[in-house]
């Protein structure tokens, strides 16, 4: 049985149909990639799954339980946790405070020491998050999400703005936590990064599901190449 199943999920903003009839299934333990041109509706889909906005049609099931999407707090308590395209952390507070808040909020906190160690936050624990170098801030954003011990982690462009070495480190971290049982739904424009991680991918275009399948199939799909990748040599 799949961990997450979307059934014809859709949302419109006024006249604009941002997401239309998207159905897909993410298996427990997978890293599932979500691709698509700018404005395709990827963030909007994650917003719906995580309960930040309400869909205008469709539903989802999570861990066998129907009736979703749930409001964001309920989604979190079921284990659905997301990060943001533009990294969010409590910028005015120290890293330590950030982690304390996340832990205090969830009541089912992961081991803070382990997260600090894994994401290299030790040296900056007492610095305000707003002063952190960009990559560290991105790590903090993910660490905050992991504090909540998610079953499904929704990552919205975690590698954006990271340099090559940082991208590789991030890939390792995501794989580590995936191996420890966190299912991941990953949005990314860095195709090499995404393809190196994803077990399966879906491609959205103008709110619709264009493709669903393995990473390898995706890169060969002419439609995907046409709307998203462009000429072959650029996906290097």
């Amino acid at each position, binding site marked *: 049985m799949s961990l997450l199943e979307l059934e014809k999920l859709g949302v419109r903003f006024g006249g604009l149909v941002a997401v239309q009839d998207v159905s897909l299934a993410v298996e427990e333990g997978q890293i599932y990639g979500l691709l698509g041109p700018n404005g395709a509706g990827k*963030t909007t889909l994650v917003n719906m799954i995580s309960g*930040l906005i309400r869909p205008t049609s469709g539903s989802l099931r999570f861990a066998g339980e129907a009736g979703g999407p749930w409001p964001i707090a309920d989604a979190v308590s079921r284990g659905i946790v997301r990060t943001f*395209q*533009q990294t969010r952390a409590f910028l005015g507070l120290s890293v330590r405070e950030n982690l304390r808040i996340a832990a205090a909020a969830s009541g089912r906190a992961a081991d803070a020491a382990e997260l600090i160690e894994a994401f290299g936050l030790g040296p900056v624990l007492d610095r305000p998050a707003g002063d952190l170098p960009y990559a560290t801030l991105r790590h903090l954003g993910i660490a905050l999400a992991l504090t909540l011990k998610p079953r499904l982690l929704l990552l919205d462009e975690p590698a954006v703005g990271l340099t090559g070495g940082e991208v590789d480190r991030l890939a390792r971290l995501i794989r580590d936590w995936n191996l420890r049982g966190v299912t991941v739904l990953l949005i990314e424009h860095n195709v090499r990064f995404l393809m190196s991680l994803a077990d399966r991918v879906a491609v959205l275009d103008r709110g619709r599901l264009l493709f669903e399948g393995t990473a390898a199939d995706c890169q060969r799909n002419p439609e995907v190449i046409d709307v998203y990748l462009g000429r072959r040599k650029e996906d290097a």
Partner: protein
Amino acid sequence: MIDLFVQQLVNGLALGSTYALVALGLTLIFGVLLIPNFAHGEFYMLGAFLTYAMVLAGMNFWLAMALAVGAVILLGCLVDRLAFKPVEQAPPLSMMISALAASIILQQSAMLIWGGEARTIPAPVTGVLRTPFFIVTWMQLIVMASLLLAAAGVWLVLNRLRLGLAIRAVAQNRDAALLMGISMFQVRLATFAIGAALGAIAGALLGATFPIYPTMGVNPVLKAFVVLVLGGIGSLPGAVFGGLFLGVVEVMVAGYISSELSDIGAFAILVAVLLLRPQGFFGQAQVER
């Protein structure tokens, strides 16, 4: 026999245009520079007192008003320099406290110069217009016309002039505006000048119908904040519509329910409007991304 409802509606629109006239300048300064300028009430007060002083000295009302506007513009820029610029980097609430301090200082200065006694500027135009349906004074008509002119003027400046483009750009994204080669100094000066001028115009016109005294600006500025929020922050049509709406509501409550409840009624409507439309009439809902 005058139809009461039409008369009350006219009363409400006349009252509302006084609110909107005061709110315009406040909207501009808050919308662009994010300064909660409580001292706007004092621009209003000084516009009234300066006009009064010159009219009393024998000057023509309109000339006096023009000079008063000029003086208040200078004063507005001075207030910006002394009270707001120094706390630019501080949390926004510090700005609010310095605005309150500036307004205390200006009130007390007026108190020392003119004393606390209430007085009214001799109106340049007297008399009333009697139509079959309602009565309205010429002064009220002048206020309403001035509101429309002022709103149109500000709209033109903001939407037709290069300066206006710059002002709006600063309001939306300060850093990006700097990168366009916009001078923050100019925009700030222009915004404060226009804002202060609007306050002074309101003061001169309303001072010819209402009593003026050093603390006369306090209540109008509170009302103007209500109008600002009712209309939607930063929206010019919002400020005009919000002002008229508040005026009509107050008059209707006072006219048909009880004068004792007119304030309660007006603020209850404010609460109700914000519950239904938390971003005000013309405000944009904030989108989370």
